[in-house]
């Protein structure tokens, strides 16, 4: 058993750490205060190869596995969570579903643009009334001559209005429940496609989130991904990879918050000594470090299982649950270690806490992860 990352991956990790700390970290505070979609840094991330990590080299990606994906995404998130969110969305569903379900023509048409970062991808599943219960979505796709017409609206779409390609799930057969859902790829300039104003959020302000509307939007038949009715199943089958990404992102935020807290505890003195010497602070740091380490081991193992092609739904949900809860715990504890300074926007930890909070919500809430884990336990037990 070897817990060390392979040397090749360590070299990539080091390159991405340097890149992220030099190019992304310095703009994080400004983007939090004056939110805008970070085009300049996304361009550089595309050149680095960070927007097509999993997509095969033949389509201009890096062709790496989920372990590498987790390691590299953690580095981005440690510099800025919003960049990690945008990266994980465009790296994730749009590219993995086009790769696994797209025709050769569709793969050639969209994957090189996405993998190079020339196009940013968005994934449109959630609706105002369909979050965790995604199969309840109402966006309708009606068959017309030469394609489909879409009507309805989507909610919480990362990179809404900014992304170039939108992978959209819509009902082609409202009677068929989850099996009546079909996937489509839309370009941003599609007539009838429009976007709401950016949501005002607790954190991750630069990861622009909007609603997306379809008003009689025409989608040619060759922009349907897979067969009619396959959309939901294909999206669910790709969820595991996305959840590993969120786990890795949570780890990155937690790591940054922990590093800030540990440094502060060395430097800050009270009653004549560094505050780390007080057990109230020292124990906190010990708990923070332990939670991060445990979550990282779960995350790397879940990613490793995915890379081996093993069914890992339970392990992925455990990693996502543990890492996102650890991130909120660690960031909250970091604020406590900083004391009053932790509450001030002049120090980074309040931002880490705000950025981390959403990790227990998106890609399945902590409650949904527990539902998934419990269901898998039942399946293993009742067999």
């Amino acid at each position, binding site marked *: 058993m070897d817990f060390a990352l392979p040397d*090749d991956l*360590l*070299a*990539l990790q*080091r*390159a*991405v750490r*340097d*890149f992220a700390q030099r190019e992304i970290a310095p703009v994080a505070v400004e983007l939090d205060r004056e939110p805008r979609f970070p085009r300049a840094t996304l361009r550089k991330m595309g*050149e*680095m*190869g*960070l927007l097509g990590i999993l997509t095969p*080299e033949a389509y201009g990606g*890096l062709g790496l596995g989920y372990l590498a994906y987790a390691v*590299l995404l953690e580095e981005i998130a440690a510099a800025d969570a919003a960049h990690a969110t945008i990266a994980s969305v465009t790296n994730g569903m749009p590219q993995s579903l086009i790769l696994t379900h797209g025709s050769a023509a569709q793969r050639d048409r969209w994957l090189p643009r996405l993998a190079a970062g020339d196009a940013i991808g968005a994934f449109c599943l959630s609706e105002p009334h369909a979050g965790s219960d995604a199969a309840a979505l109402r966006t309708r796709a009606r068959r017309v001559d030469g394609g489909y017409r879409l009507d309805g609206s989507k909610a919480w779409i990362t990179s809404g209005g900014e992304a170039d390609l939108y992978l959209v799930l819509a009902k082609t057969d409202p009677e068929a429940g989850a099996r009546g859902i079909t996937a489509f790829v839309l370009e941003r300039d599609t007539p009838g496609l429009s976007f709401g104003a950016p949501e005002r959020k607790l954190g991750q302000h630069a990861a622009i989130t909007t609603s997306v509307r379809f008003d009689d939007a025409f989608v040619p038949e060759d922009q349907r991904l897979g067969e009619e009715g396959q959309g939901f199943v294909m999206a669910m089958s790709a969820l595991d990879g996305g959840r590993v990404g969120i786990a890795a992102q949570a780890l990155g935020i937690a790591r940054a918050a922990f590093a800030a807290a540990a440094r502060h505890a060395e430097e800050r003195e009270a009653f004549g000594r560094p505050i780390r010497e007080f057990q109230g602070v020292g124990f906190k740091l010990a708990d923070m470090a332990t939670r991060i380490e445990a979550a990282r081991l779960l995350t790397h193992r879940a990613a490793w299982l995915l890379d081996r092609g093993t069914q890992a739904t339970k392990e992925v949900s455990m990693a996502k649950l543990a890492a996102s809860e650890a991130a909120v715990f660690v960031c909250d504890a970091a604020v406590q270690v900083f004391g009053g300074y932790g509450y001030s926007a002049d120090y980074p930890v309040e931002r880490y806490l705000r950025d981390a909070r959403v990790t227990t919500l998106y890609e399945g809430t902590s409650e949904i992860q527990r539902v998934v884990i419990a269901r898998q336990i039942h399946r293993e037990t009742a067999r």
Partner: protein
Amino acid sequence: MIIATYVKHVPDAEARLAADGGRIAVDDHAYALDGMDEYGVEAAVRLKEAGLADEVVALAIGPARSEAALRTALALGADRAVLLETDDDLDPLAQAGPLAEATRACGAELLLVGGKQADWDSAALGPAVAEALGWPVCDWTTELRLEGREVAAVHDVDDGSEAWSASLPVVVTTQQGLNEPRYPTLPNIMKAKRKPLERRPLTATARVVTLAAALPSRARRGVRLEGDAATVASELARRLRDEAKVL
């Protein structure tokens, strides 16, 4: 025209150092391509991209782990790499001969070397290898142009900067300001694994023998001034003027 660019695998500036039994101990993963040499790699790659050079060869002297520094140079755009492998700590003068030989062997007419080596802060290697080659050397270079076989450079001297020119072959030592080295992108790091890297065993005798090494102990030099604001301010001003001499 072939350019050789020397790279050294040195402890990362952020690496934790420990002195263990009279030796400096550093984790293998805490090493990186010397930042001073990176300017040379970048300069070489830019000359090649401008069509002024045909091939860029990265050369390293050191233990097996130095391959990582060469792979970085390959990821930055060098075409091939040669590692003169030795586990001995060779001082710059002991390295100069083998480096000169390797430079000649690859047919290079321009050798780029970091202005100093980050690990022991020696600035001797560039001039020493120039001496061994019998080539002119331009040290601490901040501008480098190549027109035909003429090298035009600007480099730092004690009282400012100086224009420098010579015909190939030459040795140029590099430093901050020469260029802004690019990042190795992930696709290029992955491609670098497939570029040719030749290892040759090196036997050379060090002229400098390290008897023991220890980390300098750092004393905290912060001073806390006590008193009311006016007293503290005037004491601070006095110290800045009379002791630190910055005012």
